[in-house]
């Protein structure tokens, strides 16, 4: 399933809404999650999962081609943890 198919499904269920509004709604949801993480916030969607930001410490990396040591600065990366209900549904426990 891709973004446009998701929008299509929501539009079919909501014939009273304009397609372009459905697009804005779906885009707003994803945009809001990214903005929250860019501020360092978590987004917890019970039953689905939680988006959070993890810190990766600075380390000495190596250029795989030359073998040269390079300093890698600390950085923050997005992380997703699957919610309990979805994890169970994936395994037919519910």
């Amino acid at each position, binding site marked *: *399933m891709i973004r446009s198919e998701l929008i299509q499904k*929501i539009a079919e269920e909501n014939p009273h809404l304009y397609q372009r509004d459905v697009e804005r709604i779906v885009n707003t*949801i994803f945009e809001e999650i990214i*903005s929250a993480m860019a501020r360092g916030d978590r987004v917890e969607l019970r039953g689905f999962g939680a988006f959070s930001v993890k810190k990766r410490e600075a380390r000495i990396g190596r250029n795989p081609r030359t073998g040269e040591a390079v300093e890698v600065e600390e950085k923050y990366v997005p992380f997703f943890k699957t919610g309990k209900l979805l994890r169970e549904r994936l395994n037919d426990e519910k």
Partner: protein
Amino acid sequence: MSGKTLTRMDLSEAVFREVGLSRNDSAALVESVLAHMSDALVAGETVKISSFGTFSVREKAARVGRNPKTGEEVPIHPRRVLSFRPSHLMKDRVAAGNKG
């Protein structure tokens, strides 16, 4: 990092502000987006949201695990797990926003 936790309510509030639907309708739409994504994943589909990220279902083989406390061997059954790969855009914005 401010370290706040957002929930469905904050997402519906954003939809409410952005599109001007009622708060109830906004909440129902957020729910419906999550439900469609979940259903597709449970059906084994990959959900690919451009400039956000890709959710995919991976099959894990059975293996023998061990209870770390007792050392006892326990069988771990084959199972399906969800993995999320963030888009470049998400990684870049999260890295830039939390820098310094």
